[in-house]
């Protein structure tokens, strides 16, 4: 066989591979294998209960099986009980999470058991939503180029979002797996619109709005994300032949705003108290040598300085019952949101230190506080999975731990994408415009989620509250790399290359 024949054969094989296994399918297959192995092949992996599961479990008719060891923190629990009779528990929060949990319960009842709930059904629901989002994301990043380098992009998607630190969440009652998929859906929907992947636009716009609404309501702390998602939606105004739909778009933006507002307003009273207390004890009182004086100056009895680092629900012992009437009446009524903002505004140095603390946690996506194994696996309590965690490990170790760096990074990225925005605006294209608002919106998450977390809950549970930060910067990182590889960073995609 001559060299020419070999080349032709290679080319034909290549075309076949590209036809049968395009980059999105490639990425989905790999992610499916990785996550499937992690979550469904016994002994399964997941995340252990950190004490928050009950909020989701009881309102959805799931309970801790009697007569079995229920583990907090140490081991993943696989089997739960399903309530058979009237369930008197009512949700304390306005949330979209029950939709997913109910679906898992339904599937469990249809295919597995009416009395025992296997956490893997929760995993199945999360897994399916996740694979769909991986497909759309990879498609959006690689369309329409048929190049081998797009397999590199698909590989990167797998490396970043196939990371076990994300997929471990599937087998748990945390809201994070849904947040991950929904963020990916929203991102991919806008990018697919920008790249004119489909002839019809409205399904993508609808996908964006629906996934945004579900994302905002998924957790009460997501309420401020409504603003970021509205920024992203501004780009849609620049779509050509869109005048008629502008009213609908404004309506959609209002829906997002109202959803965010409702999510914020409907936070349960108990959570408001927990958050104000932890904002105070884990935020205002920390990162300073002696907060007594600063407190006295801000109009709160300096004695409360001694609450530094105390939890609302005492882990073991406490000097005072933080959920009792004394603290509520004398402290919590005083340190409301306005007071906290005013305090930080007058103590910027301390606030900066807190933000750096947040920045240090930003890329650590694996929840170290809880174990990833079931007890039957024979693993020691609290053992962490290391399988396919390369990206999160490297990013966690090497991403700079300064908040100012994050701000500069965001600024640099905005400037880069502003060039594409300007060029496309001049050229009458819209890809760069949509993409600019997309990047801008997700960067606001990157910057403001840490700020809001600090103001809203101090450094308590910080790593978990920052979940949206790594997701948003990872998405922008992937977008940036794929744009560079496909030479479309500075302007809309032109057929045939640079």
């Amino acid at each position, binding site marked *: 066989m001559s060299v020419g024949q070999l080349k032709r054969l290679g080319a034909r094989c290549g075309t076949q591979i590209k036809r049968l296994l395009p980059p999105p399918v490639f990425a989905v297959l790999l992610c499916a294998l990785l996550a499937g192995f992690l979550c469904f092949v016994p002994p399964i992996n997941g995340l252990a209960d950190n004490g928050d599961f009950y909020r989701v479990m009881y309102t959805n008719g799931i309970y801790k099986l009697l007569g079995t060891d229920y583990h907090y923190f140490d081991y993943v629990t696989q089997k739960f009980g399903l309530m058979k009779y009237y369930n008197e528990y009512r949700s304390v929060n306005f949330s979209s999470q029950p939709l997913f949990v109910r679906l898992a319960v339904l599937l469990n009842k249809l295919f597995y058991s009416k009395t025992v709930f296997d956490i893997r059904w929760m995993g199945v629901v999360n897994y399916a939503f996740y694979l769909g989002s991986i497909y759309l994301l990879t498609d959006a990043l690689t369309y329409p180029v048929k190049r081998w380098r797009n397999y590199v992009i698909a590989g990167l998607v797998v490396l970043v979002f196939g990371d076990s630190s994300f997929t471990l969440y599937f087998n748990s009652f945390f809201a994070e797996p849904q947040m991950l998929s929904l963020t990916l859906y929203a991102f991919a929907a806008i990018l697919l619109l920008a790249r004119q992947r489909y002839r019809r636009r409205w399904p993508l716009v609808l996908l964006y709005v629906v996934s945004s609404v579900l994302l905002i309501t998924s957790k009460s702390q997501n309420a401020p994300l409504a603003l970021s998602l509205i920024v992203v939606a501004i780009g849609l105004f620049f779509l050509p032949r869109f005048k008629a739909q502008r009213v609908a778009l404004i309506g959609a933006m209002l829906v997002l705003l109202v959803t965010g507002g409702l999510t914020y307003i409907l936070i349960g009273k108990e959570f408001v108290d927990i958050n104000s207390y932890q904002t105070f004890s884990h935020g205002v009182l920390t990162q300073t040598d002696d907060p007594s004086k600063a407190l006295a100056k801000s109009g709160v009895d300096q004695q*409360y*300085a001694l609450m*530094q680092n105390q939890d609302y629900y*005492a*882990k073991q*012992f406490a000097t*005072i019952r933080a959920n009792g009437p004394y603290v509520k009446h*004398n402290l919590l009524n005083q340190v409301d949101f306005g007071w906290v903002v005013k305090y930080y505004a007058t103590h910027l140095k301390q606030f900066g230190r807190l933000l750096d603390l947040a920045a240090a946690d930003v890329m650590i996506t694996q929840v170290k506080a809880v174990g990833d194994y079931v007890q039957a696996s024979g693993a020691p309590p609290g053992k962490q999975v290391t399988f396919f965690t390369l990206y999160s490990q490297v990013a966690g170790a090497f991403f700079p731990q300064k908040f100012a760096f994050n701000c500069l990074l965001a600024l640099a990225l905005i400037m880069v994408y502003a060039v594409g925005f300007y060029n496309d605006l001049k050229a009458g294209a819209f890809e760069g415009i949509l993409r600019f608002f997309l990047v801008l919106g997700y960067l606001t998450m990157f910057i403001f989620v840490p700020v809001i977390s600090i103001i809203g809950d101090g450094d308590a549970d910080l790593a978990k509250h920052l979940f949206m930060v790594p997701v948003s910067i990872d998405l922008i990182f992937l977008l940036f790399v794929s744009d560079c590889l496909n030479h479309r960073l500075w302007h809309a995609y032109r057929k045939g290359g640079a």
Partner: protein
Amino acid sequence: MRSLRKIIMLLVVLVAGTLLGGRVAQAQTTRVLLVYDSQNVANNGERKVAAMQRILTSLKLTVKTQAAADYQAGTLRAYQGVVTMINWPQVGLENAAFLRDRSQFNGVQLHVGANLTSAEARHLGATPVKLYHQQLILQNRQKTVQQLLPFSDTMTVLRDLPTGTRVAGYLQSQGQPKQRYPYGSVTGKFGYLPYFKTDGYSLMMATQTIAQLFGRQGHYQPLLTITKVTPYSNLALLDQLSRYLAHQGIPFAVSTTTVGENGHFKAFKRFAKTLRLVENRGGVIFLKTPVAGGVTAKSGQTLNQLMDSYVIQLAQNQVYPVGISTSIFWNQDRLYRQYGLKRTNQILWLPNPAELNYAAQDNQGARFDHNLYGVAASSFATVQSGPALGKLGLDFALPTALTFTMPNSSRSLANFKRRVQQLNYEWADPAQQMAATHLTGGSTTVAYRHGNYFLNGMATTVTNQTIETAKLDAIKPAENWMNRFFSIQGNFLLIFFAVTVVIFAAFILLGRRIYLNKFKRHK
């Protein structure tokens, strides 16, 4: 004249009874089994069980608490006393083994509440009488002190008591004809209380009965005690309060929690200073045990360290607690007793909070050398009495702390002052009447004897000034190349990016100008 004679007679009877009846029982009675039918939480029955535990513990008895259903035959043999408590008359006692063992028991027996069996009545040598739908008045023999009781459905009282029966308090019916029945009665080794309340005059009479029954009758003045003080309390008010009491010549006690760390905070210095002022104004400090949250059977060391640091940090600031104050359920828990309470010989027993978090519950109450029974002063507010209110103060059968919640506003402070004036007791003085106490935390021991404080055996004085404790340098993490790399890397990237952004911006501007100029020239 007649009433004087009556009083003298009563006193003679009381003293004689104490001396005769008491000594016999005291020699052997140490372990007491408290058996209840039900906690009856719906009617706060668990508080009654807890209050009974407190009384018995305060009488230096070793108490084991058990539900009747859990009683196993033969258990009583190891005890010298048994208290039967009926909390839920509709359910009653059904454990045949217990009833059998009790009928053969020859130690001290007390029946509290309804369902008095005929065997028990026989032991008491009296005739039981059932009262229906009555509102009774509890009064002393002379009718000089009385308190109106809440309406009761049914109650079994005794009539035709044998001679030699000692009676504490009388129940007077309000209807016609007026009848008077004894409240607490002790006949030999058998005692009976028709009902039990956790506070007020009923409690005083009940403690008198129980103390008599177990031969531990005493006469104590109450100790004025401020409870629920924390480092977060309004310290200015506590200062005013202690100054007021000192001014009135009233000795008092303060039960306070503290923190185990952040001793260098100004807030802690201020807290300690306020407590030192209390000490110098005739007050003593009780260290209140912390609130238990998510405790487990492994929390022992944590509690030990925490209590150690409480004591050490207070002692460093010249605050020397004279004992521990705690809810009685801490004595029913192996872990709390061992790591929390056993560091002192004096405990002030307070009522249980609404939520009980046990670490290792075993219901085996331990015995401490010195005990105080804490009861809310407000429960005596409805006690009516003649001119001799102050004398009532002498009638507490066991060391009692009358508790006032720490005021939280100037209005509640004024209210506190008014109530103290109204009570008009002759209050106990710790400097004179309190036994020698000690409290240990790590290698630090604080002791209190006759109004003097001792730190590790050396007499010490309390100053009013702020104390500067040596401040330790913050511990720096060991520097290694990894740490240094990451700290440098962060700063380096920050600077690098800042510079890059500036250059980038300059290039964009520059490039834009060159680009435009290109067009201009072509024109």
